[in-house]
């Protein structure tokens, strides 16, 4: 069963840089859009709130596969040029998960007690300072665990890019290995699944460190969860 283990592993690992690039790019775009749209949903201007809502509901309400095919196959016919598959993928991963992330940001900011706003006003801080120095550092601690889940979802969604010819891990397995090594699909898929498991563990470990850092910045003791990770030295 494990005759070609090394060959399978190296072939699949050849797809890993693209999986990592798509996930990393998607995460950066997700963070950006989450904060922009999340804070926009809390804006005082009705129009800004409305636009942010339309983005969030529109991207959460449709299927990610449709979004990917739409950007990759339909948009080029409308605008006359085609995105490189990887960039189209990163764009869709970011836009889709950014819509979910916006709700995380909005929820976390709303969860900061009112007294904190009032305290900041009493200290004569301006609106920008209130958000940046008082509200966001506290909200940020609350955001980390849900963002951890969201980033793992994003990693899993990066496998969709195999459908638009990005040669990431899933594509390497299904297009390159499976057709050429019939009868050995079990080994191929087990390696593939374990690779994804390892990548999602990496995300979780990094996010625990971020959580510890965020708690320190906000002047709180680290949560039990983050402390355990710290003591294990991972």
């Amino acid at each position, binding site marked *: 069963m494990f005759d070609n283990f090394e060959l399978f592993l190296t072939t699949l690992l050849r797809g890993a840089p693209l999986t990592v690039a798509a996930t990393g790019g998607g995460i950066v775009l997700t963070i950006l859009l989450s904060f922009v749209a999340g804070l926009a949903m809390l804006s005082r201007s009705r129009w800004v709130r409305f636009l942010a809502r339309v983005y969030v509901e529109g991207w959460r309400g449709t299927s990610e596969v449709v979004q990917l095919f739409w950007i990759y196959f339909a948009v080029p016919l409308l605008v006359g040029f085609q995105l490189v598959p990887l960039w189209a993928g990163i764009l869709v991963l970011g836009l889709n998960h950014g819509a979910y992330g916006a709700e995380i940001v909005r929820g976390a900011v709303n969860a900061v007690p009112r007294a904190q706003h009032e305290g900041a006003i009493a200290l004569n801080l301006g609106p920008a300072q209130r958000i940046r120095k008082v509200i966001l550092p506290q909200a940020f601690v609350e955001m980390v665990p849900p963002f951890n889940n969201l980033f793992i979802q994003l990693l899993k969604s990066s496998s969709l890019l195999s459908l638009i010819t990005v040669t990431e891990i899933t594509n390497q397995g299904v297009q390159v290995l499976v057709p050429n090594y019939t009868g050995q699909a*079990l080994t191929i898929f087990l390696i593939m699944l374990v690779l994804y498991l390892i990548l999602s563990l990496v995300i979780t470990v990094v996010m625990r460190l971020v959580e510890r850092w965020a708690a320190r910045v906000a002047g709180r003791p680290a949560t039990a969860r983050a402390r355990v990770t710290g003591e294990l030295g991972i």
Partner: protein
Amino acid sequence: MGGWDWGFVSQIMPTLLRGLLVTFEATLLGSVLAFALGLVLALLRRAGIPVVSRLVWLFIEFVRSTPLLVQLYFLFFVLPDFGIRLSSLTAGVIGLGVHYACYTAEVYRAGIEGVPRAQWEAATALSLPRHRTWTRVILPQAVPRVLPALGNYVISMFKETPLLLAIGVIDLVGAAKEAGAGAYRYVEPYTLAGLLFLLLSYPAAVLVRRLERRVGH
């Protein structure tokens, strides 16, 4: 090229709606499987047999940390090597059901643990038999708590059924893909597919949010 062609829209609409029926079918069957299997997983974890609950936990974490698409391919390509041949739709429904069962199991667990300990103690004090404690005391309080979360997972699953096109199921998006490839026009099929998803999932999401608020807090 480009532009919106209503003639083409009316030509492909029947194909898309046939695809939508398959999407419904997969979502419905997948949800039933996810609800049932999720309950089994949740009860196995609670059963108090350390090895079993450890294994179930590992299985749940593993499935939740790996892509549904890869799991679907797994069912479709690996099982035939062991003499199990499934149709695309069956493999797809099993894939959706097992994947989401690992999420609903956590929902049930949280729902059952959300019932205060005192309720169990009161049931013991009244010397209610075990099955009546469950049917009359615990479940009536746990079920309303878990309904919104389960609803959300049905909506998520609905939006993930297009993954089944990768193993050959002609769902809504699969139908859109075929309609588009036939005429090399992709704008109308994919835009319509997106709008149909939005039209169906947004009202459902609003309903679930209302339910969430009512059960609430």
